[in-house]
């Protein structure tokens, strides 16, 4: 189990041993016989997010990065573990209390078109959170919508347009404006630029970074795009099959990645320079299913460093030589210096 971490008191969001499992397949009969299968989408994640910092979560599809974001906001109900926001336990809040709590923690979704009601005008989309939370009257909500549009760099005459009348990049700005409507301190952005073209992506990334500075936001940024993460992150967590396999500051991970999966991920990403074409072999195999995970370390079947112990025991997430934490038997651990500065992560 997790020991209370030194930074837990100052963290804005503290996640402790969070698990989210989904039952799949099988009808009533399988359920009655106890044969129902379980997807371990999120399987014991512990992490702290400091105020005004950006934690980027990277990993491939099925790694649980989106489930982690959704579970922290309780858009998915976690199976066990806890999330606290400013020291207040979010996981035990009643529906009504949770609704109030959501004013402080909001989400930006990947696909702007599927995250809005296409029949609503942009003014209704942006002011919806205010209406839900009963903030102000119609006139003040409208004034706030204009303010929000300007904040995300859109002209106020966008208010009366419909989603199909604006571009993807503009609609993603609307999604960000909506998330900011209630003045949240914490924002989870789930692949906010993945569906945008290169030239528009940079605009949205700059906007997010500016807003973070201006409004003092704390950000959890979920992405598979390493370059985009490198631009915005303070800390980076790498996920594989529902668990964090490596976490540290952006500089630590980029200069000295420790976990063999992190290294494979960095090596596999194509570089925008034909002189840096890959010469080394590409990583083998695919991510195994989260229903039927390999025993021991989940990365073992693909791992070039696998040893005997990896077959039987899942490695603890512990501090490695360069300062970050990684869950790997093959990488030697470093003694924790007094007053450790790394993220207070414990066993998964």
């Amino acid at each position, binding site marked *: 189990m997790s020991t209370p971490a030194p930074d837990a008191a100052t963290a804005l969001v503290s996640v402790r041993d969070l698990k989210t499992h989904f039952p799949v397949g099988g009808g009533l009969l399988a359920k009655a016989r106890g044969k129902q299968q379980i997807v371990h989408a999120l399987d014991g994640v512990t992490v702290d997010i400091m105020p005004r910092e950006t934690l980027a979560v990277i990993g491939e*599809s099925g790694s649980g990065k989106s489930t982690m974001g959704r579970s922290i906001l309780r858009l998915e109900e976690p199976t066990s573990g806890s999330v606290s926001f400013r020291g207040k336990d979010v996981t035990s809040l009643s529906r009504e209390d949770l609704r109030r709590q959501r004013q402080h923690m909001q989400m930006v979704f990947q696909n702007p078109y599927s995250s809005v009601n296409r029949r609503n005008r942009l003014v209704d989309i942006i002011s919806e959170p205010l209406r839900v939370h009963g903030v102000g009257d119609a006139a003040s909500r409208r004034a706030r919508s204009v303010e929000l549009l300007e904040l995300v*760099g859109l002209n106020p005459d966008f208010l009366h347009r419909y989603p199909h009348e604006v571009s993807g990049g503009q609609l993603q700005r609307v999604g960000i404006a909506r998330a900011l409507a209630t003045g949240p301190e914490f924002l989870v952005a789930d692949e906010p630029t993945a569906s945008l073209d*290169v030239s528009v992506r940079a605009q949205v*990334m700059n906007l997010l970074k500016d807003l973070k500075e201006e409004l003092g936001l704390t950000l959890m940024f979920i992405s598979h795009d390493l370059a985009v993460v490198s631009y915005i992150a303070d800390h980076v967590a790498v996920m594989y099959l529902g668990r964090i396999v490596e976490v540290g500051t*952006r500089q630590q991970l980029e200069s000295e990645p420790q976990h063999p999966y992190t290294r494979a991920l960095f090596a596999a*990403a194509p*570089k*925008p320079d034909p002189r840096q074409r890959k010469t080394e072999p590409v990583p083998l195999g*695919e991510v195994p299913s989260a229903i039927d995970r390999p025993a021991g370390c989940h990365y073992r079947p693909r791992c070039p460093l696998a040893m005997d112990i990896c077959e039987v025991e899942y490695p603890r997430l512990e501090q490695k030589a360069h300062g970050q934490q990684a869950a790997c038997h093959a990488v030697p651990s470093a003694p924790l210096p007094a007053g450790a500065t790394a993220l207070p992560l414990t066993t998964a």
Partner: protein
Amino acid sequence: MSTTTTDGATADAAPAVPEVLRVTGLQTSYQFRGTPVPAVQEFSLSVRPGEIVGLVGESGSGKSTALKSILGMLRPPAEVVADEIVLDGRDLRGLSADEARRVRGGEMSMIFQDPINSFNPAWTIGSQFRRVLALHRPDLRRKEYDAEIIRLLRGVGIDGNGKLDSYPFQFSQGQLQRIMIAVACASKDLKVLLADEPTTSLDVTIEAQVLDLLRTLRAERGLAMVLVTHDLSVVAEMCDKVVVMYAGRIVEVADVFDLFERPQHPYTAQLLRAIPGFPHDGERLYAMRGAVPGLDAQIRGCRFADRCDAKLGSICDTQAPDLYPVGDQGARAACHRVVTDLPTPTVQETSR
């Protein structure tokens, strides 16, 4: 890498090796509310055996439409006009429906972005594969099909034993993408493989495997490929030659090394600048202002003029630039700067 990269690379350069695919004067229009809207205009392409040509652009640039037009996949009301679409010396436009069907999948085949929707979910992989063999492998007898399928699957790194009766949902995305490549390459006469964003829906480690597979196919069978992608990193990784499209037209054609080192069209230069580096140096990202004009926009001058950081002046607003030759290696760029001999400046000001 390939020996075909450095010497002349486009239609007009005297090719040492005859091209396997040549397209000129291609124009494709779609119908929108009763009026034809041009999606691709004045498109041309030349591909030599064993060459990988990248077709790059953002959404709406017409790159996928161009690819589908070449293969003859578009049906009315879409309208495809071309001066020539020549595959291995034969113009495809004059073929009967039956002949065209044998060319598609026989001499030229295509792989798509989404492997899941490219298979019929209600049919087994084996039965879908057998249909392709029945059409394109007259050298095989029916009872030899399964052995051949397993051999082809092994070529893409999949053990097909006992899996031919499996349905598409029983495979992962990465596996399906590789199976699709095996199906596309089943014909012995295959000369050109058209790939429409083949790795866009895949994770990075799987993407690396699929790109590796495509490179191996090129090396082993001398296949020519046209790779449509929005991802300049994939272009850098794979291509010998690059065609950049913007708003339905070609704006630049260049050897891949030249394109990344000395882009001739301001759009290419700005696009390259907009990619964040990894690891990132902390500098603010360069962002291109504005957006791509609509397909039906009436533009007299250069279509990129509004967003261009290297605009010359009024000529850019009044006169559309031709696709001028750059140097004598077959490179081209549709920018007035090419004929005025002004260099494409490296963009300094960062706009938001």
